[in-house]
């Protein structure tokens, strides 16, 4: 199995390469110039040109790319054009908030969505099913920042029970950490709940029509055992897949939620870097996202084996 994982990781190198080429060409082809951003609005063309030269932005694109690639191969992702901090360090600072947000959101979503989906499938086409469906589509239809604002204002500010914004690192205490993450996770999780409950319902419906469910009923087993022991495990793989696919969605949503709730995460780092043309950070972060995507897919594949003994590596 270790061998398989290693092979998998090696086979991802092309993906990372493709991502780096995509991002580099994107940055190369589009307007915007960090030198101008550094110099400020009032700088003359001469000033900007001097700074461009100092930053090496006047070198040919291909040369810049290979320089960067060479460094990356040595695990050096460069430094921020603006504050000179290493990209690795900047990303590391942002890992905990984003990963905490994603983990808690995923947990929240699964805990809510899976039972909802199971219920909807169990009582397919009933009123309960319709309500679950409508609620889940509705939560999908409201832009995440609107949900975030409304929750922050009415739940946090008006009641004073939870902080309105910000993030507390785990070292400041689990309670603090959780208190700061509840609302962001819920706002972000609602879309995810919709997605997971829908796939749970669909997957459960599929499984509930399987022969072995009929067998279970023929044995006289009762509803809860059939649903949660016999059906859910069989329905797990599509759910796991969607949870995994949703991670990409979460990363995107995190950009927005991190802004609304002022969480110093990777999403905000990325948006800031994009708006400011901090090329090394953009490239580093995009590679990170590609890595996350790959690792999440690997985890999904491993989870498949947990839920389904037929799958082995």
């Amino acid at each position: 199995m270790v061998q398989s994982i290693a092979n998998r990781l090696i086979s991802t190198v092309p993906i990372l390469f493709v991502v780096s080429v995509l991002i580099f060409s994107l940055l190369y082809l589009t307007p915007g110039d960090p030198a101008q951003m550094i110099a400020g609005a009032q700088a003359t063309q001469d000033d900007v040109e001097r700074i461009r030269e100092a930053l090496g932005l006047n070198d040919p694109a291909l040369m810049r790319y290979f320089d960067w690639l060479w460094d990356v191969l040595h695990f050096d992702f460069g430094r921020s054009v603006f504050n000179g901090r290493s990209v690795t360090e900047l990303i590391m600072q942002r890992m905990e908030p984003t990963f905490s947000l994603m983990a808690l959101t995923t947990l929240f979503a699964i805990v809510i969505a899976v039972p909802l989906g199971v219920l909807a499938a169990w009582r397919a086409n009933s009123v309960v099913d319709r309500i679950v469906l409508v609620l889940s589509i509705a939560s999908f239809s409201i832009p995440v920042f609107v949900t975030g604002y409304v929750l922050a204002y009415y739940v946090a500010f008006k009641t004073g029970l939870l902080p309105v914004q910000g993030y507390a690192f785990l070292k400041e205490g689990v309670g603090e950490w959780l208190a700061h993450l509840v609302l962001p996770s819920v706002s972000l999780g609602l879309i995810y709940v919709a997605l997971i409950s829908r796939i749970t319902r669909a997957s459960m419906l599929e499984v509930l029509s399987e022969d072995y469910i009929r067998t279970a009923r023929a044995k006289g087993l009762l509803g809860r055992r059939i649903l949660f022991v016999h059906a859910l495990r069989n329905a797990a793989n599509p759910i796991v897949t969607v949870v995994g696919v949703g991670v990409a969605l979460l990363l995107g949503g995190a950009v927005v939620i991190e802004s609304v709730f002022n969480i110093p995460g990777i999403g905000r780092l990325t948006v800031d870097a994009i708006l400011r043309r901090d090329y090394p950070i953009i490239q580093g972060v995009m590679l990170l996202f590609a890595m996350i995507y790959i690792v999440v897919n690997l985890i999904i594949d491993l989870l498949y084996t947990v839920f389904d003994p037929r799958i082995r590596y």
Partner: protein
Amino acid sequence: MRDLKAVLNLAAAACIAASVGVASTLPAHAATKSVTAVLEAEIVTLDPHGTSAYITRTFGYMVFDTLFAMDSNGAIQPEMVDSWEQVDDLTWTFTLRDGLTFHDGTPVTATDVAASLKRWWSLSTMGRLLKAAAKDVVAKDDKTFEIQLAEPFPLMLTSLGHPNSPAPFIMPARLTETPVGQPLPEIIGSGPFVFDASRHFPGDSMTLTRFEDYKPRDEPADFLAGGKVVNIDELKIEVIPDSMTATTALSAGEIDYIQYAPFDLLPILEQDPNVTVMGFQGLNMFQGYYPLNWRNPPFDDPAIRRVLWNFVDQSSVPIALGLSEEYMVPGCQSYFMCGTPYETTAGSQFPDEISVEAGRKALAETDYDGEEIVVFQGTDIEALRVSSAVLYEWMRQVGFNVRIEAMDWATLLSRRKNENEWHAYGVHALGLDLGNPLSHFWIARNCVDFPGWFCDEGITAGLDAFKEAPDDDGRKAAAAQISEAAFESVPAVMWGQFAQPAAYRSDISNIIPSAIPLFWNLEVDR
């Protein structure tokens, strides 16, 4: 596979444990006295010589120190300098105060000063004036340095004390070897606050601590001048990109200070007993501008540029921004702003009735032939967005064939370099800069290679007169001369004078009224 299951079980157990351990402990301030501030933007560039960005200047005044500084009357007062002497027309000598120390413990020497000035003057507007007049800056001994001039320079103290960004901040000589544009390897100043890289989380927060070895001047604090006595232990500067969130956080007491309170929320904040709103006057106000591109037809025709005077009134944009009258100066017609030393309406081309109708008439009298006008709109700052949108709307109604292109500020700065791509954009600047022709972003950029490429001999003559004027009366006369030329040739059209009020928790007192947020002198009662 069994191992993986075990790990998962463990993870699940941990999650449960975590959620059980939730206590609703809400943030409690530590024993250290600390203030949390949200400034206009993130402090991105930490090199105080490296950018004209206001936010870096704000950072500079906290961590670095200047030789001279401006007081609340606009007068230049000594700060790091103890005494100085104009030896002759071409020689000035300065002596530093005793006890000035950098944050790394080394004393501030004349060598550091000389090196800092030479690094600073290349990118700064004021610095360039000094650079043009100067032969050299020489350290005479540890505390004394001499500026040797090639021609007389009456603005010596202004250039060394004016807050026009970047201001002449002093740093250790070894740091000055870093070329401007590259990040400084470390941030060492001699100002009242110490920067600690390990407590800097770019994009999120930065914590500055009081510099225990700082020796404040004896005079009371007066704007940027006077004794900078720090009464708090820590200043935490947070980045909250969403102003709505920041405002709510201020009301909830999670932060203490917002540099720019959102205009529309001012009424709410004013009613909040826990929050104080601080408005500004004079040089601490802003003025908005539409810089015009003289190289792109039809704006190569001054007559068509002058049409704008007929419909750009000086209150619509601030009102559209959500400001009430108390935070603006309606109808100010001065290039150098109103309520400032060089206020003048000389040569004003504003008609009595400023309206779309007047604009339409004025346009009809020009040779305008329906050429397309492109308005650039910066989207990431509200004033940029609103002012450009209003301009677009006005021009559309007046009868220009106008198109608006929205982009983030970075793109705008980059694209405005192409002279064929644009005609105008909306922007604003602080009175500290605009109040003086020499640091005025559009007047002082006359005839240099700057996007807009405005070049008017009349303005050049006026600027020369201003530089050479021996006294303030002479300078005021020169300012009026510039004003007349500018109204005629129109490098830029102003769209209104307004304040960007700050808001802070009411348990903070003695805050220095300044559009550059200053965190010395203030006291916290907790």
